[in-house]
């Protein structure tokens, strides 16, 4: 039986780098992360990339695979290979540190800019807030809460590419989960943070984020929710 070999082109260097092609043996149930790990361990020890959990929980291994942003640990080669070839680049819209590693600073700073942290209204001495799982707001928050912060939606967003200051889908998805958290008291400030030109009103609803989110979340819906709440706040004179 002849061994099937894959041609794996991997980005090497910084923004001015280039692709280097490696041959990797095709194996059953192989993931894209397996390919990168094989190259780093057996062919090119100098290759830089990020990963941690390998099971789709930590959100650190996202890369651009054959032109699309993906979590590489749970992307099977069989689902992405085209004519025996795979091209692996770092994520779009984030500065390249080296090879497949991008600088995620902007991405996470925008979570803070979108007021993505919980603002408590009670202290530990108060009664625990009872929030029914069937509560409408609770369900809206639930829909967006499983974000793993991988940056795939951010890299897939055209508006991020056009407007470098745009907050992006992940940060606003986070803000929307907090807008629906009845225990949170930071909404006036949060809506002001997401209302501006770099916020929810600039979303074109093209849904690249929805298409690519590995957790099957819907940041476009979250942003549409923020648009509604922002407009309500503006009409009430709260912005």
């Amino acid at each position, binding site marked *: 039986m002849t061994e099937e070999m894959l041609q794996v082109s991997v980005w090497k260097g910084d923004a001015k780098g280039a692709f280097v092609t490696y041959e990797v043996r095709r194996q059953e149930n192989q993931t894209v992360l397996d390919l990168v790990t094989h190259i780093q361990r057996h062919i090119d020890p100098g290759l830089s990339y990020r990963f941690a959990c390998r099971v789709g929980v930590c959100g650190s291994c996202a890369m651009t695979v054959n032109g699309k942003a993906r979590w590489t640990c749970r992307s099977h080669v069989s689902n992405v290979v085209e004519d025996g070839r795979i091209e692996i680049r770092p994520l779009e819209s984030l500065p390249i540190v080296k090879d497949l590693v991008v600088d995620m600073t902007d991405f996470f700073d925008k979570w803070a800019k979108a007021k993505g942290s919980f603002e408590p209204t009670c202290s530990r001495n108060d009664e625990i807030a009872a929030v029914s799982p069937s509560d409408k707001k609770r369900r809206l928050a639930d829909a967006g809460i499983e974000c793993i912060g991988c940056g795939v939606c951010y890299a897939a967003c055209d508006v991020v590419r056009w*407007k470098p200051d745009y907050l992006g889908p992940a940060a606003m998805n986070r803000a929307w989960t907090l807008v629906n958290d009845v225990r949170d008291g930071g909404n006036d400030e949060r809506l002001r943070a997401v*209302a501006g*030109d770099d916020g929810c009103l600039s979303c074109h609803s093209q849904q690249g984020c929805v298409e690519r989110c590995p957790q099957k979340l819907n940041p476009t819906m979250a942003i549409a929710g923020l648009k509604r709440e*922002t*407009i309500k706040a*503006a009409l009430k004179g709260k912005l």
Partner: protein
Amino acid sequence: MIQNTVRSETWLWLAQRTSAVVLAVCIAVHLTTMIIAMQGGVSTAEIAGRISGNPMWLVFYGIFLMAVAIHAPIGMRTVLLESTSLSAKRVGLLTMLLGLFVFVLGVRTILGLYQMVPAS
């Protein structure tokens, strides 16, 4: 200043969405009228006969024009801000001029047709 920008951006957004709703209705009425009027060809006299001296059409086209003059410049502003490196100030000025231009042309057209004496 930052607060003001957030507020004005939000109002611009709301103005554009609201004018879009008005436009959807106006365009539907306008196109339907045109399709009916076009049966057997359209002429200046025929248009003037329908519109001139008719306050209902004057009000209708007045609303239509205002919706266009609000909607188009705000949309152009967004397109220019996203696709060019022009400053926000310059884009604001350019699109405000565009809005004024459209409005003046529109007023002239509507009043012209309203006051036109239909050929007997």
